[in-house]
């Protein structure tokens, strides 16, 4: 596979002073660099890899994603609405760069294979002519006044802001005595290696179930264990259910051979060629000991933060993920931003505990575009274009956005469409984090977002900002999620009476 820019010779972005540096050439970095370039923000784009989409050359182990792309849809592939049907392609304003992943799919499944995903990302980088300095490894960081200095394998880069799109890709093991001797998920490689073996998997989230499902045709016995019960209610509404839940199905039916256990793993001991695993129940009383041939740590990944924690970067999840503001800036280190999977370190308003899709491409591609806009505005004073919206168009526009705006449908409760009062009418402020609209103040305006209720139901929601604060208006549900109809127009008309009267 060809890299976008050959190494050696005329490598772009030599060390020096830039407005922004983007680190990492996975989907988060590609989307951020593309968006910054569209906004005219001068930036260096660095990657330690030799080609884009490095992670998708290695993972997932069992070769298929859990996020859908539907090659056939009721809308054109070049339309904005198609993004809802294609959760894996990067975003573009040019038709020839839109929806690239479905071009590579053989349609045997609506979930792309690992190779399909990699090909789609490489095609995006190539066709967008994104310049990347490959083979340039970020090694250390210095904060010098208002500047951030990155020490790299090629020299120093000095910038007003840095966007780290470095993934959550470093294997992480929970602090269980003896787990350091176990293979990590990333080391499982070929399933046939586990033929006729008894395998204990620590972890019951995505990678745990992925491995367990992959080993079902090979392993003699499979045990999955972690303290938290499987959240069957949540899983029923998650992308994970599409694959991987077969092991849970086998266990739930009551037969032997596959077990899904709620237990703390107290310690793991070497026992001859195998392991002895000591567990203690969390949802049941007692202890169990397992003698197994293999232990696999499917306890997840961490962001490779290098020296940032030593500089004061605050993290969550036992140091694995940077803690971020709603604009994906470190809560403790200004000018340090994160894109890609680590943008999940910003939880948003999290109403009723609901989270956005920031840890997968479908969600973080929007975060990257909004982040680029934010950086352009706050660090370089480049105000976004705000198209006027006629007063009579405000309600139909909001209802269309609630019905099919992909940013709202995907980043539920995190991103919203904002219209504000200006010059006697309204302007389109574009897409913003909901938390910013609610908390930062500003001109009278309205924000539309899609939220979920306590049982996963879809709730179209409108926030109206005025002099006395923000009012919340949850609109009634609709079985087809079509809100651009007359009853909703009347409903919204009554809720926005104050705003539209004052615009």
């Amino acid at each position, binding site marked *: 596979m060809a890299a976008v820019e050959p190494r050696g010779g005329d490598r772009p972005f030599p060390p020096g002073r830039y407005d922004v540096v983007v680190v990492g050439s996975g989907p988060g970095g590609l989307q951020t660099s593309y968006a910054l370039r569209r906004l005219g923000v001068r930036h260096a784009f660095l990657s330690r890899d030799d080609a884009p989409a490095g992670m998708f050359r290695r993972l997932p182990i069992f070769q298929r994603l859990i996020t859908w792309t539907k090659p056939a849809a009721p809308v054109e592939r070049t339309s904005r609405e198609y993004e809802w049907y294609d959760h894996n392609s990067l975003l573009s304003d040019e038709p020839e760069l839109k929806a690239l992943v479905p071009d590579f799919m053989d349609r045997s499944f609506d979930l792309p294979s690992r190779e399909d995903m990699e090909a789609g990302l490489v095609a995006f980088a190539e066709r967008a002519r994104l310049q990347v300095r490959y083979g340039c490894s970020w090694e250390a960081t210095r904060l010098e006044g208002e500047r951030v200095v990155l020490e790299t394998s090629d020299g120093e880069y000095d910038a007003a802001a840095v966007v780290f799109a470095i993934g959550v890709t470093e294997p992480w093991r929970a*602090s269980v005595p003896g787990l350091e001797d176990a293979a990590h998920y990333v080391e499982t490689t070929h399933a046939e290696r586990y033929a006729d073996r008894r395998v204990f998997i620590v972890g019951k989230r995505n990678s745990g179930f992925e491995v367990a499902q992959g080993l079902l045709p090979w392993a003699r016995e499979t045990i999955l264990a*972690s*303290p*938290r*019960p499987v959240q069957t209610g949540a899983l029923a509404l998650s992308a994970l259910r599409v694959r991987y839940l077969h092991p849970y199905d086998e266990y739930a039916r009551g037969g032997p051979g596959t077990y899904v256990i*709620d*237990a*703390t793993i107290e310690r793991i001991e070497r026992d001859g060629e195998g392991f002895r695993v000591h567990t*203690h*129940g*969390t*949802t049941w009383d007692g202890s169990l000991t397992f003698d197994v041939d293999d232990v696999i740590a499917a306890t997840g990944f961490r962001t490779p933060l290098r020296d940032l924690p030593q500089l004061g970067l*605050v*993290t*969550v*999840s*036992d140091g694995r993920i940077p*803690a971020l*503001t709603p604009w994906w800036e470190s*809560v*403790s280190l200004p000018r340090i931003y994160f894109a890609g999977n680590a943008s999940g370190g910003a*939880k948003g*308003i*999290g*109403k*009723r*505990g*609901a989270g956005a899709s920031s840890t997968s491409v479908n969600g973080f591609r929007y975060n990257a575009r909004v982040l680029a806009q934010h950086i352009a505005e706050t660090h370089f004073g480049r105000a976004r274009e705000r198209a006027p919206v006629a007063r009579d168009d405000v309600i139909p526009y909001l209802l269309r956005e609630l019905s099919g705006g992909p940013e709202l449908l995907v980043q539920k409760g995190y991103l919203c469409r904002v219209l504000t009062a200006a010059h006697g009418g309204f302007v389109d402020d574009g897409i913003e984090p909901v*938390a910013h609209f*609610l*908390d930062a103040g500003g001109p009278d305006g309205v924000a539309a977002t899609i*939220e979920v209720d*306590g*049982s996963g139901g879809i709730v179209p929601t409108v926030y109206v900002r005025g002099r006395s*604060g*923000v*009012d*919340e208006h*949850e609109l009634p549900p609709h079985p087809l999620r079509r809100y651009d109809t007359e009853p909703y127009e009347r409903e919204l008309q009554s809720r926005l009476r104050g705003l539209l009267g004052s615009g």
Partner: protein
Amino acid sequence: MDVAESLSQLALFADLTPAQVEAVVHSFDEEVFTEGQRVLRQGLSGGNVYVIIDGEASVRADGRELRTLSRGDVFGELAALTDQPPSADVVATTILRCFVIPGPQLEEFLLERPRVLLRLLRMEARRLQTSAGEWRQ
């Protein structure tokens, strides 16, 4: 210190066994807010329940500061239990690290852990006593 260790040191979770604390930690998330960030929003629905692991916050309503919160304090629980919007804002005044229980899951969380429920009840009773004392003065 990992999250389980932090939680086990808080009064609210003091009666749980290490395995029970581990299960709690794996069931919910922690969240960190920057100074000045609003955590709970007066009048807006869907708030969660927050247990402060580290840092301080201010309870504010209608522009007045009502009290400050610190490590071990719980907020958002009354709104979650009554399914009403919070009657005050809570704003981080330092970097604030919280353990977060989604509002709709609080009832089940407490019913499954009666000792935590009792601890929370005592905290509420003390808060009520303090408020009553202030009222008398």
